[in-house]
């Protein structure tokens, strides 16, 4: 990261802040998220995947820009819509597919599936099947960092729907009272399942909730990579400085249904199509090209790389062994 740009530089935050290689990698991971989820969707339709899954297609900038400055020591807690967070934090798509396919080589050894993917090594404490389940856990992780004198931060992803769970309010309050290094990142995609934010939430912006807990709250265009990166950057700086938590609201949209069983009766085709014109990946890609970070051919190469990685990941997952039936009670308790 090079943040010593001249004051007159009015290029977007990300362009002036991150090295070209970092930006290229960010684009690659965004493609990887998109291709991964398309691959998962395809595998689901071929009957290779059990259960359901929640796709974040259309929300890639929020995941990637938020994780831009995080190291493996920094933690995230994720949600049921967590594939993007996982990949942005550096997970291997082969092991993710293996998990989807229920294989022993998957991140959770086939026990968890899509909704519980975690990669503890890269600081991803896991997706969560419980809306709002990750919020207090993130606060706990931040407490650890503070008590142990480490300067890691925790990013807590959650959806707009989760802001109405008691856990959200209890967690924000404690984080603020104890000035813990946690960044609450709300991915506001307009709906909690079928319920529009306007029908479920008393405030106009989720970020407005921040003032009730005396922390900064900011609402940004979640499909604008640079805007997200800038807001999260400020929150991280604040957290690392010991000044406590922040709330960042990334306004975005999910292109797909809530899960694999969604009749889409609560939103219009026009609304979906309109949002699809605001593709965060295409937008970031043209921004990088416009600022000379990449040319078209290089951007295509990045996309092709991501595609190849996804194909290799699926092949790995398919050929991986399934867990032994006799091991059904394994991992319930520590092994000694």
């Amino acid at each position, binding site marked *: 990261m090079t943040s010593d740009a001249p004051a007159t530089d009015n290029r977007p935050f990300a362009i002036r802040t991150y090295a070209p290689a970092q930006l290229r990698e960010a684009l690659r991971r965004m493609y990887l998220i998109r291709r991964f989820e398309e691959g998962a969707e395809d595998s689901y339709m071929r009957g290779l995947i059990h259960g359901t899954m929640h796709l974040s297609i259309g929300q890639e900038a929020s995941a990637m820009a938020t994780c831009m400055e995080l190291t493996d020591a920094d933690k995230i807690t994720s949600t049921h819509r967590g594939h993007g967070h996982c990949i942005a934090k550096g997970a291997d798509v082969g092991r993710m597919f293996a998990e989807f396919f229920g294989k022993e080589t998957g991140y959770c050894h086939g*026990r968890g*599936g899509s909704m519980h993917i975690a990669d503890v090594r890269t600081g991803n404490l896991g997706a969560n099947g419980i809306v709002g389940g990750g919020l207090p856990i993130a606060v706990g992780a931040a407490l650890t960092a503070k008590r142990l004198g480490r300067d890691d931060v925790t990013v807590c992803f959650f959806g707009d729907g989760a802001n109405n769970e008691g856990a959200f309010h209890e967690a924000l309050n404690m984080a603020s009272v104890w000035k813990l290094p946690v960044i609450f990142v709300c991915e506001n995609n307009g709906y909690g399942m*079928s319920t529009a934010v306007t029908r479920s939430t008393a405030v106009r912006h989720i970020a407005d909730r921040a003032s009730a807990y005396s922390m900064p709250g900011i609402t940004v265009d979640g499909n604008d990579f640079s805007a997200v990166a800038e807001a999260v950057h400020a929150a991280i700086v604040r957290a690392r400085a010991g000044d406590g938590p922040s709330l960042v609201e990334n306004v975005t949209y999910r292109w797909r249904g809530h899960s694999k069983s969604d009749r889409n*009766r609560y939103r219009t085709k026009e609304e979906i199509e309109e949002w699809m014109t605001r593709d965060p990946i295409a937008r970031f890609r043209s921004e990088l090209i416009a600022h000379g970070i990449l040319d078209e051919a290089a951007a295509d190469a990045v996309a092709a790389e991501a595609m190849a990685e996804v194909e290799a990941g699926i092949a790995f997952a398919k050929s991986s062994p399934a867990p032994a039936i006799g*091991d059904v009670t394994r991992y319930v308790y520590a092994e000694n």
Partner: protein
Amino acid sequence: MNAMTETGLRVLSYSEAIREAMAIAMENDPTVILMGEDIGVYGGAFQVTLDLVDRFGPDRVMDTPISELGGAGVAVGAALTGLKPIYEFQFSDFAMLAMEQIVNQAAKLRYMLGGEASVPVVFRLPAGSGTGAAAQHSQSIEAWFGHVPGLKVLQPATPEDAKGMLLSALADPDPVMIFEHKLLYKMKGHVPEGSYLTPIGKALVRRSGTDLTIVAGSIMVHRALEAAERLAAEGISAEVIDLRSIRPIDAETILASVRKTGRLMVVYEGVKAFGVGAEISAMVAESDAFDHLDAPILRLGAADAPVPYNPDLERAAVPQVETIEAAARRLARREV
């Protein structure tokens, strides 16, 4: 929706039967309201409420925010003061977020107030495994509530019972929890027209037999019946009792059967330890039916683990027709 069998009996699916019960109740009683997450236009996560919002309007079919503790609590408060709410948990697993209102409030209010208060709330809870939804969306926690005086806990196994029990629950002045098995929603069966009440606390002998008694609830009734059918081909005559209600529990029907067969097996989807099987076993051991036991009592419950994601592990984790059949055979052949 009004399919007829060859015998001319009307056939509905389990979810249609539940929906019909709710519609009848709302038509007959203006104080009946439905509450829950995405039960309006979305039709409910399992499409049980489906079009009821179109028929009764959003004021009586209320989408709640994702706020289980609050939502269930609001239903309790409304029930306490004159409404008859049916609160749908999207998955029974989420009742844990509302434990406080269910267990500390709803269950105890009448008693704590010396009989001066009534909480006629109905909680509907989609339960069970088999959908690949993993550990936080597949549990069978009905026995937990069996431990709470003040609650009634039902487990309909057929469309007919699903409707009749819901109508009985609404007619009941105390809180009733109805655990509906997700895999049963599509099951079809005869459902009488109009309003009728299935008695709460009355088990049903679904198949009579002489060699052993299998007590089961919910989907396990069907698995036990199939196992009994297979065993009949070998000359083993199993009696299958559909428990229907965990609390109150029908001791009479179970004890009478054990007196007849001398052998008892309890099959349930919850974790085997500390479950429905323990309660029934102890009940038999404490009664005069003990002297009729000609073999140890067998319990068949889920593996001592959270429900795994991998489909084969998931199947292996809970009793299946084959496991019931094998265990019943051992019991009948005096191998235990």
